[in-house]
């Protein structure tokens, strides 16, 4: 295989994207910082995802056109330092393939070289031992293979071997990496993309159809014949039994189709869904009560425009709430607390598991309101929330909360009737009125702020910053509070899934002995990873 078509080239991109997705959290773990932090891998994946999404919209299969879209998508979607570098690397592919319809070995070698050259230009003082070094050596590997007249598979193998070799040497070039005992995260990301391209070339993996849709030549309008779910089904249920709430009904029906909308009061529930089994939906409704206003349309018999128009009308009809609230959190207890405070949808996610843009979009679509407030509750999730806000038609306010306590503080300013912009300001102001402490265990040995940290040590973070280290939760927490205490009156404690109620009560006792809070409240948050989340206000 010395030359491939543009269609096959799309497989390479898809392979890279999927492999990057799989390796995302591993790459994140290489960041030189001892908490489970999500940065480089996430940024590179999201940047590459946006790039590939731009390719999706193309009908052309020319490699030049594909690369142009890819470069534009990466440029627009670049996130963080590593994302910007990746966008420049991809621009190298664009520049090197300006006239190519197909993609051959010489093109690959030139692309990798150009990628590296352009990436090096973007910084005043290039630092060796980073993704830049890996990109340069990768290009060397490709040129070596070209001289030996290897085919695309052999060439990518050689490229990967060179890149891997360079990556293994990054700790020798950068002391910070050596100290932490890791290789460069960005370099690992680039290597992952190259490996993924090889996987895509070999057709190693079967992809789920939804993922395939991302890169196959796309059509911009919905064609009736391509509908996944055929019947647009609507019904009104007069509830007899009161044991199911709207959220229960929504989650029961979710698996039967898409475009699901459920609204209602205590007595009536209105359901809208696109499904292939309207009968099941009706039967389900019958179990809850009596039905009326039933409407079932076969959307295959309607034009795409008409469907779109009708859907729009339905959406308007269903937008019965003034405002919606979405929050991100992990743990049943945390979820419950949010729901009690009026949050409509709690997206499962946190430090080690960042929800995707798609998770946000789904949640946004599931709320019957045109105005929605989002609380991301983690610094690495804010960008995904903002990204989601930019792709929906609804008006979204993302409050940049970085922790659960900040979210709860900002909810104190929540007002359904307020103007969304003013509300955003008011809620954002509340964030600073609370101090958040998160307690976790270090995942690997490292040195931070001059402190020696061993894997397994208890570390307490104040505003994302490691402040105290030790082996005992209670002691570490008390040390930190001593450090930052400024006459706060209320301490709220959320204990995680690994902590028993007795342990939490003991901590409360210890705190009462050491400090003079007016009130200490404890809640079972059942969150993973963080045994304690504490707020002071």
């Amino acid at each position: 295989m010395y030359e491939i078509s543009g269609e096959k080239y799309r497989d390479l991109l898809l392979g890279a994207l999927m492999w990057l997705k799989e390796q995302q959290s591993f790459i994140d773990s290489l960041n030189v910082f001892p908490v489970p932090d999500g940065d480089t891998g996430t940024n590179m994946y999201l940047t590459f995802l946006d790039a590939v999404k731009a390719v999706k919209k193309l009908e052309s299969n020319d490699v030049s056109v594909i690369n142009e879209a890819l470069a534009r998508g990466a440029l627009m979607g670049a996130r963080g330092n590593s994302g910007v570098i990746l966008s420049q690397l991809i621009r190298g592919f664009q520049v090197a393939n300006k006239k190519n319809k197909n993609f051959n070995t010489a093109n690959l070698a030139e692309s990798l070289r150009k990628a590296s050259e352009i990436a090096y230009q973007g910084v005043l003082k290039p630092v060796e031992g980073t993704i830049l070094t890996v990109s340069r050596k990768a290009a060397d590997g490709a040129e070596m293979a070209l001289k030996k007249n290897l085919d695309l598979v052999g060439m990518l193998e050689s490229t990967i071997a060179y890149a891997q070799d360079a990556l293994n040497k990054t700790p020798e070039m950068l002391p910070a990496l050596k100290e932490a005992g890791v290789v460069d995260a960005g370099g690992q990301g680039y290597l992952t993309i190259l490996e993924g391209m090889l996987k895509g070339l070999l057709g190693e993996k079967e992809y789920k159809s939804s993922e395939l849709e991302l890169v196959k030549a796309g059509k911009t309008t919905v064609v009736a014949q391509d509908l996944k779910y055929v019947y647009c089904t609507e019904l009104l249920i007069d509830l007899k039994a009161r044991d199911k709430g709207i959220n229960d009904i929504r989650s029961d029906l979710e698996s039967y189709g898409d475009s699901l909308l459920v609204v209602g009061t205590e007595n009536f529930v209105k359901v809208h869904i696109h499904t292939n089994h309207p009968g099941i939906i009706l039967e389900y409704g019958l179990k809850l009560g009596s039905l009326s206003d039933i409407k079932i349309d076969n959307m295959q018999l309607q034009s795409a425009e008409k469907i779109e128009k009708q859907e729009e009308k339905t959406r308007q009809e269903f937008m019965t709430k003034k405002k919606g609230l979405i929050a991100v959190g992990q743990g049943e207890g945390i979820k419950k607390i949010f729901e009690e405070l009026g949050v409509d949808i709690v997206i499962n996610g946190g430090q080690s598991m960042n929800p995707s843009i798609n998770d946000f979009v789904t949640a946004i679509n599931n709320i019957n309101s045109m105005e929605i407030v989002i609380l991301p509750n983690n610094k690495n999730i804010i960008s995904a929330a903002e990204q989601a806000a930019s792709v929906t038609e609804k008006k979204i306010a993302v409050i940049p909360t970085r922790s659960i306590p900040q979210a709860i503080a900002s909810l104190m300013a929540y007002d359904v009737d307020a103007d969304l912009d003013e509300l955003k300001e008011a809620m954002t102001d509340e964030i600073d009125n609370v101090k958040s402490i998160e307690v976790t265990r270090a995942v690997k040995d490292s040195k931070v702020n001059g402190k020696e940290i061993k894997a397994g040590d208890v570390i307490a973070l104040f505003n994302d910053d490691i402040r105290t280290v030790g082996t005992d939760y209670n002691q570490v927490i008390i040390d930190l509070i001593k450090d930052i205490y400024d006459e706060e009156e209320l301490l709220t404690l959320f204990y995680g899934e690994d902590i028993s109620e007795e342990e939490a009560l003991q901590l409360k006792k210890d705190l009462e002995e050491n400090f003079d809070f007016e009130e200490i409240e404890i809640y079972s948050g059942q969150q993973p990873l963080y045994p304690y989340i504490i707020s002071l206000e």
Partner: protein
Amino acid sequence: MEKEWTNNYGKITIAKEVISKIAGIAAMECYGLVGMASVKVQDGIAQLLGWENLSKGVIVDIEGDNVRLELNIIVEYGTNIHQVANNIIERVSYTLKEKVGIVASPIDVNVQGVRVGNAGR
């Protein structure tokens, strides 16, 4: 004016030049930034500064406890300028906090120029 702290033993002062240099170096580590610029008051033309003078592109303003920064930068053509500027603000803010213990706010970034490299055409 300098930034000052007092503790039980005495006073610590940090000169503006120190802050601007550290901020300049931190910014330089950011990908996409290829130089700092100094804007001449008389003609308003941005001039690319060398490595030695990069702190001249950073304007530091201290009023009491408040430290404001203004960075005049030149970026590489073809990068997402908005994202690069964001990265710079984050990096500078983090570095000043870590290395000097100063919380600078606001940190304004003025993009004074774009450098068009030779490989990009």
